[in-house]
């Protein structure tokens, strides 16, 4: 045991570990710090300088692959530490924004867009189904829980469960109607469904028509209502903090779920369908089952986010679930990177925050999204974070040897 060799080996490993931790802390704090500052940016001011600097640093670093590799290595080696540290930072956000609920509101919207985009990623990214009806999935969830809460006084928690079930059924319905149609035909049918959904909720009586549903009750836990300000360690946080933590928890759970799905056999089946349906069929994969699963599971993500959205804004109307929203979601997935969960997360955050923060973009929001889609398709068709090659350790290979 006292072999000096082992000991030095041990201490070397310890140093290495500490080095990894330090790198993780530094990189995450930088990213977090940039995010916070970008959120609190008011127009164009000196803080913009803060973004230029790290971006320049990033591009300079591109030339020194060693550092990039080291950063990547430290994150992949100490995966759980990196995740836990990021979560800790995220938990910290409401304390920073306790005087500015509006910024917290943007963070919540980031989370909701993220959950929805994860659902779309399953269909668009993993399975290759260009779904233009995803806003309808989101809307089905929102309307289900809102209608149940307003008319039948369902609690939020039951409502979200119902939203999940109904949107999954809706996903199955659309999925089964479109089993035969592929490619353009699938795109067309989903567009038609998107328009039909919008027209229906816009005109039917029980959905409140274009006036929508207002005064959707706040979620409660026991006696504690989400509309009351959250008090932690004597610090009063605005009521949005409740939703923030809720959305954070659900977003993290969704990320976990999406990751598990990606790594599971189902994820592999979806990719097989995307690459070549006929080849997949020949390998004994049930293409129909795979597509239906993608439809339903994607819809579940959308419906869940929709239900939270309805209760959070406490008002929904058809205008929030238009074709435009579908295209925004597609834009998020394409910008972030098809079939890459990290990419989708980055895309969701960027495309929620940028239009909110920069006035010109807010006015020309859809123009901006259109240009982004084309620019990404031309210059970086893989998205910001390209899809990774799947890793398998069939023969007990070390994780990073492939």
């Amino acid at each position, binding site marked *: 045991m006292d072999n000096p060799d082992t000991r030095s080996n041990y201490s070397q490993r310890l*140093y*290495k570990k500490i*080095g990894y931790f330090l790198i993780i802390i*530094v990189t995450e*704090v*930088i990213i977090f*710090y*940039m995010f916070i*500052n970008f959120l609190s940016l008011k127009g164009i001011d*000196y*803080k913009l*300088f*803060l973004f230029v*600097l*790290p971006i*320049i*640093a990033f591009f*300079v*670093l591109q030339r*020194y692959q*060693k*550092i990039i590799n*080291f950063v990547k290595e430290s994150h992949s080696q100490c995966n759980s530490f990196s995740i836990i540290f990021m979560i800790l930072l995220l938990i910290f956000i409401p304390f920073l924004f306790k*005087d*500015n*609920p*509006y910024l917290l*509101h943007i963070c919540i*919207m980031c989370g909701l867009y993220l959950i929805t985009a994860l659902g779309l990623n399953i269909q668009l990214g993993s399975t290759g189904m260009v779904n233009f009806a995803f806003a309808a999935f989101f809307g089905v969830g929102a309307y289900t829980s809102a209608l149940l809460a307003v008319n039948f006084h369902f609690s939020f928690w039951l409502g979200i469960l119902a939203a999940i079930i109904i949107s999954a059924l809706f996903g199955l319905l659309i999925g089964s109607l479109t089993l035969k149609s592929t490619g353009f035909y699938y795109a067309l049918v989903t567009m038609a469904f998107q328009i039909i959904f919008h*027209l229906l909720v*816009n*005109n039917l009586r029980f959905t409140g*028509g*274009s*006036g*929508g549903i*207002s*005064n959707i009750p706040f979620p409660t836990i026991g006696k504690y209502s989400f*509309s009351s300000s959250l008090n932690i360690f004597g610090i009063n946080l*605005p*009521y949005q903090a409740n939703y923030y933590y809720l959305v954070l928890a659900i977003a993290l759970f969704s990320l976990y779920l999406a990751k598990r799905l990606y790594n599971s056999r189902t994820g592999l089946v979806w990719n097989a369908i995307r690459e070549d349906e006929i080849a997949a069929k020949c390998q004994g994969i049930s293409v129909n089952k795979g597509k239906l699963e993608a439809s339903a599971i994607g819809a579940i993500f959308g419906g869940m986010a929709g239900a939270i959205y309805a209760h959070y*804004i*406490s*008002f*929904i*109307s058809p*205008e*929030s679930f238009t074709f435009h929203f579908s295209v925004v979601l597609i834009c998020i997935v394409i910008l972030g990177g098809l079939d890459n969960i990290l990419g989708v997360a980055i895309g969701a955050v960027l495309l929620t925050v940028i239009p*909110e923060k920069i006035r010109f973009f*807010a*006015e020309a929001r859809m123009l901006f999204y259109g240009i982004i889609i084309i620019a990404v398709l031309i210059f970086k068709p893989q998205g910001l974070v390209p899809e990774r090659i799947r890793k398998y350790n069939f023969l007990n290979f070390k994780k990073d040897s492939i």
Partner: protein
Amino acid sequence: MKSIFKNKIYLVLVFSLILAFVLCQTNLVWADAKKVVKIGFIDPLTGPTAAIGIGAKNSAELAVQQANASGEFTYEIQLVAEDDASDPATGVAAALKLCSDSDVVAVISHFNSPVALATVHTFHRFGVAQIMPSSIHPDVTRGNDYKEVSRICADNIAEHNFGVDLVVDKLGYKKWSSIYDTSSYGDNCNNNFKKILEERGGVLLSEDGISVGTKDFRPILNKIKELKPEAIYFGGLTTEAALCKRQMHELGMDDIVFFGVTGLDSETFNEIAGPTAEGTIIVGKLALGEDSDFVKAYKAAGFSEPYEATGPYAYDAIGIILEALKKVGPDRKAIVDYIADPDFEYHGVIGLTKLDEDGQSVTGGLTLKVSRNGKWVPWSE
């Protein structure tokens, strides 16, 4: 690992991090010379009804400029204009943004009723006085018991009462067909019209909903023609109404009276319908003469856009807040209480404003108008 720390580029990273931190901590804020009190403003500044929002914003800006120039306030008053793009979710985000700015003492907001219905809860939660110069849905004020919320224009029910007085009671048209758009505005119009018409002994032969953006009314008009009504009621907005009137002419239905409420009150109607607009009767918003102080001041201020129908209301809404600031000072709660006071009265461009217990104006100026030679002119016997 040592090789990395030797690398100069690592220094760049650390340096940028430190610089970033330092820059963040030093708050490069130039102290304001004068205290600022902000009045929020939310209207559609982009989107389909942007023209109305911009007209209202200019009028509100005018009122604020005049107040600052008058020297009656020891602080500078600023108008913070936000865009709701006629979209409730954007409206709520904008309302949150304004409410979370503690300098904002009160907010003027929303042309679109759906947006107003969505944001009233937000304003109530933050205790910020919200004065609506132009939304029309009765539930905005009557559907809640928030004392923060008030409206200084007539609501939909009042408009219909006013109009039906003329067309049914005085002119004696009893057989009607209704065309309405299925937006909340059109739907609400149709319901109120139907109720009031039936109370006054009229008959509604048909009701047809159309979606906003419909451009072909011929199928519906063909059908209505067979029913032979004396008049057609249109619950909707200018463009659709003008197209409908135009196509009525094409189908030879000129002898049928065309009637609408404030949704039609815009010169765009006459422009699109052209000569076929002749004889259309509407309940219009108040028409200001060219010689009124507001119109003169607006012209003198040199805004490039017209003040539109809602301009005078927005101007008065700011006027009410300024009055409150003078009386009770820049405090959110005091302003809410001041406006909610049952004895509250304000004399402005639109005349006397008095609010009932729901915060709904009981006065709100309305005028009957008729289209003559391509222009809306006030109705005369």
